[in-house]
């Protein structure tokens, strides 16, 4: 249903189904992520380990469109993104073992009246268990935005990145590529410990965290000139912080959405 095509449709959905309101928090991990460089996404990003799962919905409904989203943080100077998150593959560094357990391909979603096979708008290599590895070369084999398989993304990660460090893959995709549909293999050149997961993201909302006050976003999902994503039951929403040098990433998120049929 094109529930977000008009304010009237939003009101009608709320009248029929009630909106969904959720408030959740993420405690500080207490550790700043290990910064990337020109061979590993350029920036210093953190994936917060606390995620939120879309609950089930009533009969005849398919999910939720976010209509409002706010964040409160203890202050700092960084960006944040709330995004639908999809696990595309896992690498266990010890033994250099790739696993597709729990992994999916990027989903098919309704967008502006069409059913779209999505590719990640953002793709991150996330350290979920701290690495013991000296400037390891991470090679990800993936299917690109056009469905071409066996594409390679090669990144050289910093030495011993800490848990929750996230490295943006897009600058290092194969020539001509912009997105990732699926991952078929991950390998690493060196290292004795740690786990890396590849996540594909579809952004729901952007935030900027101010240096002096607890700031919420004044740009709401419906105002953005990009896809408004249908958030379906059991899908995961995660917070990614960009250019975050602080160890304090505590946050609280309020999300409001209307049901889509």
């Amino acid at each position, binding site marked *: 249903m094109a529930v977000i095509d008009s304010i009237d449709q939003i009101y009608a959905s709320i009248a029929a189904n009630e909106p969904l309101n959720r408030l959740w928090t993420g405690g500080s991990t207490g550790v700043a992520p290990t910064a990337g460089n020109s061979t590993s996404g350029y*920036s210093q990003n953190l994936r917060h380990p606390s995620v939120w799962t879309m609950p089930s919905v009533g009969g005849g409904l398919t999910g939720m469109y976010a209509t409002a989203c706010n964040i409160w943080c203890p202050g700092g100077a960084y960006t944040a993104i709330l995004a639908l998150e999809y696990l595309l593959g896992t690498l266990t560094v010890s033994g250099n073992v790739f696993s597709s357990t729990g992994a999916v391909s*990027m989903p098919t979603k309704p967008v502006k009246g069409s059913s779209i096979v999505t590719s990640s708008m953002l793709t991150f290599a996330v350290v979920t268990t701290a690495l013991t590895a000296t400037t390891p070369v991470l090679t990800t084999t993936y299917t690109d935005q056009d469905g071409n398989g066996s594409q390679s993304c090669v990144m050289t990660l910093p030495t011993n990145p800490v848990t929750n460090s996230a490295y943006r893959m897009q600058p290092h995709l194969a020539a001509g590529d912009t997105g990732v549909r699926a991952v078929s293999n991950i390998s690493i050149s060196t290292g004795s410990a740690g786990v890396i997961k590849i996540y594909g993201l579809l952004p729901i909302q952007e935030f900027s965290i101010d240096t002096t006050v607890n700031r919420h976003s*004044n740009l709401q999902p419906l105002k953005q000139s990009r896809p408004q994503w249908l958030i379906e039951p059991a899908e995961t929403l995660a917070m990614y912080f960009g250019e975050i040098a602080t160890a304090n990433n505590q946050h609280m998120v309020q999300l409001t959405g209307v049901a889509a049929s």
Partner: protein
Amino acid sequence: MATIATRDEFIQQLARGKGFYYPGRHGAPPSNGTAAAAASGYMSCHLMFNVQGTTYPSTLVGVPLPPTTSPLLVAQSGLRGAARVFHWAWIYRFGTLNLAATGNQFTHDHTFTELRRTRYGEASKAINLLPMVMITTATTVTAPVFRLRTVAAGAGYVDQAGNSVVGTKTMTMPAAATAVNSAYIFRLEDADTAVRNISNIEVTTAGSAGAASIWGVELLSSMSPITVGTLGAMDSLFGNFAPNDLQPAVVDTGTAVTAYLGLVRFSSSTTDLNVQASHIWGALNA
């Protein structure tokens, strides 16, 4: 699909992962710079080349685009920062200027005569740039003075209409000790609004020390946070009909121009210099 024809197609391209989505933060130069004066272009500016690890002014790293050469049309850009005027911009380097000696002191980095891109159906159409100077070595003892010409009154720049121009207006750095990373807009001749290239600069008064880099700035999208901490945005898709191409312009001849995708800040003050959170995204028009 073919090129984008509707706004819905624009959104759908992004959904297919055929685009560019960049959340980031722009590191400001480490010093506020010296405020501009009337004789130095009025506006106090900052060229913000971005990304973490950047060391101004020696090591500059622009926003990395995905590895495609197809057009990437800006859908939206946003920024959280101080209440100043910001632009996303391509920042092209013309060359360097020695401010510690008089005479013809400009060295061009390249051999191009103009930068080009497709505009209004015309391929390789020259683009016009905002000329800027950024101090890379602080000046000392005497405020340098320079102008866009040679000592022998040869042309110093090509204007927005393609005319070679002998500059008569001087740029006087605002202080004997003009700080590193200060940036100013060149004073052009009356009726001129932009340059296509800069070829010569005569330093008429030198400092005991001082150096600068010379830039041409192509403005892509403007943003103006209303107050500190708010997130201002420019919606190029629904807010206007001019989504610019995020790919850089190309030279008409010679080696590729050194260029950075970043932010330019204009202000009447050099204070309140801080890091700017930002985002920009665009769709592949192919």
